[in-house]
């Protein structure tokens, strides 16, 4: 037991003691205990960890969280949090980390698409998930992933059968709402697309939780040969929320992941997106923007591994920070031996709207193969005074001019969002979110 007994660690230990002694099959209990022990040894990641260099969890260490929201199953949720433009199809809703069948729309799921809440799977048929939940923790797993292994009781299992192309977007909503005290939840998701299958996922984080929850999400995504996943994240978590996510994607031959993110909410939000282009000609595109204000902190880690031949990764991210906000962007392209013909690029541009805002961006390339194309670039700048004056000289007030320019700056990151009504909604959200610029 090496982890320092901080209020955070103690509250996690208490949660495990209260809810997971012998809660399921023996293999699962063993896996949970093992993961908890490993967490107690490693503790939360600190800034010596290269991937956490600019995101310190010191404040988190001092907070204790309730193990669950006992009333999560009955809390009412405003209807507008459950709706998103362009998402009229199947919907899975989680409130304070608990799946809500009553708010979800899973009755008319298209054929070939299977949706199952993890909580349900664990009760009735956990065996098929053994490969996922009982896998040995590897060295890459930080304390948060271990905690998730130990404590995750909810999540969503999504499967699309071979050759099935689902046209309606799957809408997954995570609502954080006030529970009296700060609650922690750990969700484990699995998305698996069979050969030639395709799916659109829209993930929406929203809420009005003033007590400041802690959400720890771990997801595994597998795209079989020629499968195609279009995934959009709209992150509007409540302003006191801590939202930490890790997503591991494996793309087989010719598979395609098209990822979009609009990160607007939360006090501390982090997403570690790992993409393994394992199969030849697999392709990963990512577009994303974050717009931060106040003392928000948002960390995006995009870690791409080219393993197959002729694989492509193309990432374009935009960041905007005002007031005392802090943005972190880390784009890493690793080209493994044998991944000849790989083509990777990562570009990130950022705007600071105040002298006290900060954005740290690090593009990194590691290349161990031949005949590889790899490009990266990152900039941090401010609004161009000449452009601002040009707009003002045409009669556009300063504040409007600033908003116009920030919107234009981020627009490229939202361009590919589908369906179109969702993209328009995201553009509106962005316009509303824009922080005041300070001279």
């Amino acid at each position, binding site marked *: 037991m090496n982890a320092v007994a901080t209020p955070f660690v103690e509250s996690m230990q208490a949660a495990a003691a209260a809810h997971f002694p012998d809660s399921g099959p023996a293999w699962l209990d063993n896996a949970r205990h093992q993961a908890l022990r490993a967490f107690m040894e490693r503790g939360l990641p600190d800034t010596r960890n290269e991937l956490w260099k600019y995101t310190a969890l010191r404040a988190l260490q001092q907070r204790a969280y309730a193990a669950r929201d006992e009333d999560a199953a009955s809390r009412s949720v405003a209807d507008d949090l459950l709706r998103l433009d362009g998402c009229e199809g199947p919907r899975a809703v989680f409130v304070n980390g608990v799946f809500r069948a009553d708010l979800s729309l899973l009755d008319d799921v298209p054929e070939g698409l299977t949706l199952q809440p993890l909580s349900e799977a664990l009760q009735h048929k956990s065996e098929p998930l053994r490969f996922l939940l009982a896998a040995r923790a590897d060295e890459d797993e930080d304390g948060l992933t271990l905690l998730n292994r130990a404590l995750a009781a909810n999540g969503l299992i999504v499967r699309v059968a071979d050759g099935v192309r689902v046209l309606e977007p799957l809408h997954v909503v995570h609502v954080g709402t006030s529970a009296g005290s700060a609650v922690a939840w750990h969700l484990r998701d699995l998305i698996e697309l069979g050969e030639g299958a395709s799916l659109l996922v829209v993930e929406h984080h929203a809420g009005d939780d003033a007590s400041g929850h802690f959400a720890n999400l771990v997801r595994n995504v597998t795209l079989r040969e020629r499968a195609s996943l279009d995934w959009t994240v709209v992150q509007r978590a409540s302003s006191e929320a801590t939202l930490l996510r890790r997503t591991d994607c494996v793309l087989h031959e010719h598979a395609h992941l098209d990822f979009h993110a609009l990160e607007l909410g939360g006090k501390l939000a982090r997403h570690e997106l790992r993409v393994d282009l394992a199969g030849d000609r697999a392709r990963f595109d990512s577009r994303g923007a974050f717009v931060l204000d106040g003392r928000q902190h948002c960390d995006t880690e995009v870690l791409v591994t080219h393993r197959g031949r002729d694989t492509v990764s193309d990432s374009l991210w935009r960041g905007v920070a005002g007031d005392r906000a802090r943005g972190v962007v880390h784009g890493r392209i690793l080209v493994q031996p044998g991944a000849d013909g790989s083509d990777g690029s990562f570009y990130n541009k950022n705007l600071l709207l105040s002298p006290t805002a900060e954005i740290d961006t690090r593009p990194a390339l590691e290349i161990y193969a031949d005949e590889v194309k790899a490009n990266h670039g990152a900039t941090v700048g401010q609004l161009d005074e000449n452009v601002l004056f*040009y*707009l003002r*000289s*045409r009669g556009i007030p300063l504040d*409007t001019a600033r908003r*116009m320019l920030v919107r*234009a700056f981020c627009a490229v990151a939202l361009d590919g969002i589908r369906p179109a009504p969702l993209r328009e909604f995201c553009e509106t959200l962005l316009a509303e979110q824009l922080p005041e610029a300070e001279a």
Partner: protein
Amino acid sequence: MLKIENLHARVAGKEILKGLSLEAKSGEVHAIMGPNGAGKSTLGNVLAGRPGYEVTQGTVTFDGKNLLEMEPEARAAAGVFLAFQYPVEIPGVNNTYFLRAALNAQRKARGGQELDSMQFLKLVRERVKEMGMTPELLNRAVNEGFSGGEKKRNEVFQMAVLEPRLAILDETDSGLDIDALKQVAEGVNRLRSTERSFLVITHYQRLLDYIVPGFVHVLADGRIVESGDATLAKELEAHGYAWVRDRTPAEAHA
């Protein structure tokens, strides 16, 4: 309409305008000529309110109002328009969207009705036709990837849409070949009216063959040193700026 008296202005701590006076009445076209570094562009930027241009002395009144106290956007709403020497590119901002935002902001500031998108489109289409603009340019980002000529023509096009009371053309002829110059001049001439005044800032006399001014002023070392009618431009062309450099500052011809 515009009255500049004893204007002194500094840029980056250096005094550029040193007591400039000029009066332009409604409907008049004034050409401001002068050698490089005389302060021609500074005058345009001071009038439009560019940050970093510090007025240390003197007054500028526009339709009876103190122009120097107004924000750039308020000056625009009052009817001042600066056609930039170097129009800026604004990636991601659509030309039509930009123009509509500008026009409606001005109308709103003047207490008028904003145009809806149908009304605006109708207006823009008319202006496009009148000005011989390439309609495709409207769907592109503001000035992005435009040629030098296209940028300058876009400035005049914006002017046609915004219908200012005072148009300041800052070296609109620079970088244009003769065909582009003629097109730009035609656009400007089309906008000449008894309700509108022009300050045409230029280094060369050539532009004034096409936009014939009523008044020509020679600016040297931050002051107007000579004023006359259109023939003054011809004389300058013949003798060069050295001809006026040693003359004493003259009062601007009104």
